[in-house]
Structure formats: structure tokens, C-alpha cells
């Protein structure tokens, strides 16, 4: 097995007395799409924030391509990118200006060509000079995805990337991400509440409950292994009765 692109070891986060993440360990390999699933408040976003270095863990470590995020943050994040529904691109800059700004931060070579390529890829060429705040939510999501691809990341963190997209665009984006993972060796950590999407896209899923990993496996076989007819049923069980499921 190749070296993991993301390695999360015994990661923990407490906010006062509240345990948000409790000893979570997992890896993401190159070419692999891993789904991070769980009900609201399970700790998904907290884990993503710790991977991105914007939240300090109380315990454990995160390494991206072997680089510790705590001690080699800039180097680790240079080969990482993300998109999240709660972090849209600034609405007061155009799509092009936003991409140019982030391209400079990531020190992207041949910026103009790369931006043109991404504008075409995400069908944003017509919105090149439109302020992001004036775009529809679906167009904003595509602009955020274009930004996430700017630096040709080896690790891509996608927090509900298709939540604002219509089914047709969502299908295209899923295909693009799959292609990216398969052909360019990118490791992807994907969160979604759409279980059909997760089954279609993810090679492996991690079910989080109360800040800990409860289940892990192939999203196509995991429901049967736990006596459920679908991934959605399994999700509902995890959300409602995590302790029962754990015992089972």
C-alpha cells in the first residue's frame, strides 16, 4: 500500500467539558475517496477544521503526505485544498479575482492558463467577471470547487460539495471528482448527507457518532453487514441509536 496522503492519529478535541472528537484515527490513501458520515454534531466539521489547521487538536496528530500539520503547517497545506458550504468565496470579488487571489497564495504556476482551464471545467467562463455574491448557490459551489482544484491538491477535503447543485450538475461534479481521484492519485475526504451519492462516490465510509468512529467499511456492503437494507437506514440507526448499534 502506498503512503497515505492523510493520516489522522488518535485525534481528539474538547471544548471545556464537551468532547467533540474522541480518539479518531484513520487514513486516506492516494486514489481513494473516503466518506465521513454522521448526524449533525457528530464531529465531521471539527475533524475537517483540525486537518486544515484552523483548529488545534486537544490530542493526537494530523499528517498530510507525512508532514505534521501542527509543526509543518504551510508545507502540509500547500498540497491540500477544500471546499465547504459554510465557507463560500468572498462575494465582493469576481470569480476570476477570487481564483487569482488564491492562486497567488498557493503559488500556482502559469496562473492564467490554470484559471482558464478551471473556468472551462466547471462551466464558469460566462461568470468570469461576475462577483461571487451575485452567483446562484449552485454557481457559487462550482466556483468554490474550482478554487479547491487550483493547486492540483493531493488531498481534497469536500464538505457537502454538491449540497447546492441540481442533480445534473451534482452528477457531473461527482464524475469529475472520481476522475480526479482515479487518474491523478488524489485522496479525497468527502462529507455528505446524501447516502445515494456516498454509495456512488466513496470507496470507504467512516460513520461518526458523538465524536468517535462507530463503523467503517465499504458503503455498498456495510448496510447488509449490520442488518440494514440501505446506507440511509444505517445512517438513521447511527443517528438515533448509536449505542445499540455499537453493541450489535
Amino acid at each position, binding site marked *: 500500500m502506498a503512503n497515505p496522503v492523510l493520516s489522522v492519529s488518535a485525534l481528539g478535541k474538547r*471544548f471545556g467539558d464537551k468532547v467533540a472528537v474522541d480518539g479518531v484515527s484513520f487514513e486516506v490513501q492516494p486514489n481513494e475517496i473516503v466518506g465521513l458520515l454522521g448526524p449533525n454534531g457528530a464531529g465531521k*466539521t*471539527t475533524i475537517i*477544521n483540525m486537518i*486544515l*489547521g*484552523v*483548529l*488545534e487538536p486537544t490530542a493526537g496528530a494530523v499528517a498530510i503526505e507525512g508532514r505534521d500539520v501542527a509543526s509543518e*503547517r*504551510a*508545507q502540509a*497545506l*500547500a498540497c491540500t485544498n*477544500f471546499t*465547504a458550504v*459554510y*465557507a463560500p*468565496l*468572498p*462575494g*465582493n*470579488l*469576481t470569480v476570476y*479575482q477570487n481564483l*487569482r*487571489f*488564491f492562486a*497567488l*497564495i*498557493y*503559488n500556482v504556476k502559469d496562473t492564467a492558463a490554470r484559471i482558464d482551464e478551471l473556468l472551462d471545467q466547471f462551466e464558469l467562463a460566462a461568470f468570469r467577471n461576475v*462577483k461571487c455574491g451575485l452567483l446562484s448557490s449552485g454557481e457559487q459551489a462550482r466556483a468554490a470547487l474550482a*478554487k479547491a482544484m487550483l493547486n492540483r491538491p493531493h488531498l481534497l477535503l469536500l464538505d457537502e460539495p454538491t449540497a447546492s447543485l441540481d442533480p445534473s450538475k451534482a452528477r457531473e461534479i461527482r464524475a469529475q471528482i472520481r476522475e480526479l481521484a482515479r487518474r491523478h492519485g488524489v485522496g479525497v475526504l468527502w462529507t455528505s448527507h446524501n447516502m445515494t451519492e456516498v454509495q456512488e462516490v466513496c470507496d470507504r465510509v467512516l460513520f461518526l457518532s458523538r465524536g468517535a468512529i462507530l463503523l467503517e467499511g465499504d458503503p455498498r456492503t456495510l448496510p447488509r453487514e449490520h442488518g440494514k437494507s440501505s446506507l440511509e437506514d444505517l445512517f438513521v440507526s447511527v443517528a438515533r441509536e448509536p449505542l445499540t448499534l455499537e453493541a450489535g
Partner: protein
Amino acid sequence: MRWHPILAIVLRQFYLMRGSPARLFPLVIWVAVDILLWGFITKYLGTVAAPGFNFVSTLLGAVLLWDFFGRVMLGITTAFFEDVWSRNFLNIFATPLRTSEYVAGLVLTSILTSSLALVVMIALATAVFGLSIFAYGVMLAPFLLVLFLSGIALGIFSAAVVLRLGPAAEWLIWPIPALLSPFVGVFYPLSTLPAWMHVIAYALAPSYVFEGMRAIIAGATFPATHLLWSACLAALYILLAAGFFARVYRYAVRTGLLARYSAETVS
């Protein structure tokens, strides 16, 4: 420290100003209004006061230098507020950008915007009211340097306060120059102040600049050691402000404040 992320911060400000005259206006309009207002006041005072006192160099020059200091500070804080207003912290700090590079980008932005304001003020004061900026002689450069360093220190400190206390703390920041001005003695000698205010006045680097400016206009000498001391004070304040910003940033990363920085106020 790398140049490309620093330039990214400056480029972002350039895009914002180019796309919005409302952002460009305050850079020059407020200082221009100040120069015009004080220019006419000095002109009037010149007609009613005893001859021999140069109100233009003393008062209008003081306004010009004080506004420059304020523009340097606001150049940093308004660039920082752009990230606050657009809720951009997660996007910005989840990149390889280092906090030192981010702050350097804010400072570089401020150098450019405050230089523009300075040029406008000098042009207006010279053309309309006959202010000769060269009346301060070779001391003009160190005066501007001390004010510039002081503005940077205050700008970084103010950004850290807003990062720590939340977006609503912006309202604490705007009046800071006005709160400092009585202690600095922009328009009067420090000897005018009561004793307790002296302690604060002498701890503020800009105080020495305005004392020096008045001394030069009056034809007296201004000890170079005072100027050196004020420059050292300003440099010390930059170090303290940068340390404070770094400390607040670490706090924000540790507590989750940075990741969820959109609340109206933060405890």
C-alpha cells in the same frame, strides 16, 4: 516569509478598491475634507491673531501629520475588516498562508493607501493654503517614519482586538485615533497637559513628533535623541502588537474561534 502570499493580500485590496469607488473615496475624501476645513480655520486665525505666528505650518501641518498616522492605522484595519465582513477567515487561514505573511500583506496595503492619502494632503495643503512641507526640513522624513511605525503598531493591535472580541468590536477601533489625540498634543505643547497626562503622552511615540514639529517651526532645535527614542518606542510597539496578534491567533485556533468566526460577538 514569501512574497507571493503577501502580494495576494495586496492584490485582493486592489481588486476591491478598483471595483468599488465607495472604498476608494475614504482614502482621500476624509483627509481632503480635513485639510480644507483646517486650512480655512488657519487662514481665519491668521487674520485675527498677532502677526508672526505661522498657523499654516503649525496647525495645518499638524493635521496633515496626524491624518497620515490615522490613515496608516486604518489602512491595516480596513484591509483586515474586509476579511471579517466577507467571513473569509476559514478560506484564508486554511491555506499555506502564514500569519506573518498575512500581517505583512496588511502592512504593505497600508503603505500604499496611506502614501496615496499623504500625496493628496500635501498637494491640497500646498496648492490651496501655501503649506511648505519643506518647512520641517530634513526632520520631515523621520517624523513621517515615526508616525508610520506608530500607525502600523496600532493597526496590528486593533486587528488583534477585533479577532479576539468578534466583529462587533470594530466599533471600538474607529475612535482610537481620536482618543489618543489629546494625549499626543497634536495642536498644543505637551506642557499644556496636566501632570497625569504627561505620563501617557511621553509613552506615545507620535507625541515626540508633534513636539519636534512645533520646535522646528519656532526656530528652536529638537534633540535628535528624542526622535531616536520615539522611533525606538514605535518599533517596540510594533513588536508588542505583532506578538499580541500572534497570541490572539493561537488562542483563536485553540478555542475554535477562527473556524466559527462569524458570530456577532465572541466571549
